[in-house]
């Protein structure tokens, strides 16, 4: 069994000694405050506080913030609508609708690619699951919207919003196939495909 020793209040309870303790602490604190105040107001030292959002605040490149879709060198969205991000997503916030591409350059592309950003937990699994480096989590962290905001990021927004300054191009070094616009490589009109994506060979 231990004994807890409780200190008794000082016998010489004296108004002046107690008040002195408080006053001395306050004055030394105020001294520091005023010192910084005058240093910063006269502009001798830069303040760390930002006038956000007028002044931009940035995180590092590797910060996992707002998603974006990358583009190929020809400007098409790189996403092939394979649904792996939607499969990996633990919050089930990615909605994709795949379709045949109207041009010959790709076969399958996302007609719709939507991220329900309020459900997103920013885990980055979509980025890891993507086999073609089409989705990345960018350094933007601020997501602002009015009361009518739907909080669903569409394909166009994800690929080409103002902050991306014209979009991000992802260059894959290998396995980028070369395509031809020849719809009928076998010279057989009957089976010439309306579907795109023929190889030159």
């Amino acid at each position, binding site marked *: 069994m231990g004994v807890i020793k409780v200190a008794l209040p000082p016998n010489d309870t004296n108004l002046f000694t107690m008040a002195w303790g408080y006053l001395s602490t306050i004055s030394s604190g105020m001294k520091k405050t005023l010192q910084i105040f005058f240093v910063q107001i006269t502009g001798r030292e830069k303040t760390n506080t930002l006038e956000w959002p007028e002044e931009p605040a940035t995180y590092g490149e590797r910060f996992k913030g707002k998603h974006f879709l990358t583009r190929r060198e020809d400007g098409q969205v790189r996403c092939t*609508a394979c649904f792996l991000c939607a499969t990996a997503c633990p919050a089930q916030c990615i909605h994709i609708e795949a379709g045949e591409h109207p041009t010959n350059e790709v076969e399958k592309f996302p007609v719709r690619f939507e991220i329900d950003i309020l459900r997103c937990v920013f885990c980055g699994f979509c980025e890891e699951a993507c086999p073609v480096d089409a989705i990345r989590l960018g350094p933007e962290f601020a997501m602002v919207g009015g009361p009518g905001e739907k909080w669903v990021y569409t394909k166009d927004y994800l690929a080409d919003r103002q902050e991306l300054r014209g979009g991000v191009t992802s260059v894959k070094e290998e396995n980028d196939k070369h395509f031809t616009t020849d719809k009928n490589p076998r010279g057989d009109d009957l089976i010439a*495909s309306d579907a795109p994506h023929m190889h*030159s060979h």
Partner: protein
Amino acid sequence: MAEPTPTITFLMNDKELTVPKGMTVMEAAAKNGVYIPHFCWHPGLSIAGVCRFCMVKVEGRPKLEIACNLTPSPGMKVYTQIPEVKEAHKWALEFHLINHPLDCPICDQAGECKLQDFYMEVGKYKSQMERPKVLKPKALAIGDDLVLDTERCILCDRCVRFEGEVTKTGALGIFNRGDRAIVGTYPDRKITHNYQTNLVDICPVGAFTSKDFRFKQRVWFLKEQPAICPGCSTGCHVNVHGKPEVRTYFRVKPRESAVNGHWMCDKGRHTYKHLNQEVRLRFGIVSDGVKGSPRRRASFDEAIAALATKLASVDAAKDLALLVSPQYTNEEYKAFFEFFVKKLGVKKVFQWREPTEKIDEFDGLLYRGDHNPNTKGLSDALKAVGLSGDVKNGFGELAKGGNKLVIALAPEVAFQYPSLTAQLTSLSELDYVSLWTLNGDVFGMKGIAHAIPMKGYTEKKGTFLNYQGKVGELFAPFPSAVDDARDVTETVAALADVLTRAH
């Protein structure tokens, strides 16, 4: 007395198996639950032995042998799991993947692809090829419902054999040699028959894809459910693939059975479309029963109450007529006729059939001219309550009128009824029609005074009788895509309940 079939006893993985003489090791393994990896072997087709993947070790023989073309001799010792065999699988797979484009992200087969499965099982190597892959034509529209990608093809020959042996159309062949070999159609010929999508099913990789299913959904999101195809009187056993959580179905695939073997027709593959919520009748329709009066949406209970009121106001034996299409289950017919014919004494029962149908037509494989799954069941049910079970379209007779109330069980598979719109229009000109249907179009038809939403064939339990009288069972229903939908049995029970409480 029949001669007993001679049998042979041999050992597979040190386990004794007794099989009929002439059966191959592959079949014996499949029958006894031993899985031997394979691409080109298919139980419904002949043996080709081209993929060289089903290697097994036979004791005493210097090299591995292919199981699909190996008939066991008495006492033979076969091993399917030893390291030597697994090594053979691994390198056979590498050969198959030399020119395979790895289109998995854009390939519909991903998720049910044999190459993916075996790579995860025995492969997991890094490719040793330094040369670029051979490029071949892609996305060829070689059939009405087919897209062929010759790059993904591993030349297993299954499709060529299917065309030669099952449909006997012989439209496909393998052309060129070596790594330039491609599968394709002969010049100026195209696959047009009614069994094309079977090529998609038997293709172990994604060389054939179905235009109907192309890019709609990844297969790993789909749930599979056994059912009976309602497209014709053959009653093929099928699996319906859908996403019950979004109330949408995506495709129908054959399920192996004695009725349909391994195949089904393309018409039957479209029997999922009427089940999707967006085309269904999602609520009941009620009106005050006077011709031309405004109609409104109603819940199932309101619709039943309205029908019960109407039913109480007419003389069932004289003024009530029933119009029944042969697309409902035996159990539903039983409940329906027990109530209306036996209990209420209805005399006038007509069959709702397609006037242009040719019942006796048969294409020699599966598809029959009778486009209803349960013609026989309806006949039997009619006979059971003492009515004529003759197969006869009673639509014209009914449309003459003279009935104050008509209760009609509408056909479920609307695309098999080309005259359906005309038939519904003539029904809507009658005094008061209570239409029990899945078809969402009826809400647009002003003359339909009353409607009750029905469940589709994937959403109820029951049995169909096919043209031979064989029973096909619906036993594992999905939740209904429409909340207010009921099957006929439930509707009749609810109606009987309301009527008993009223009196």
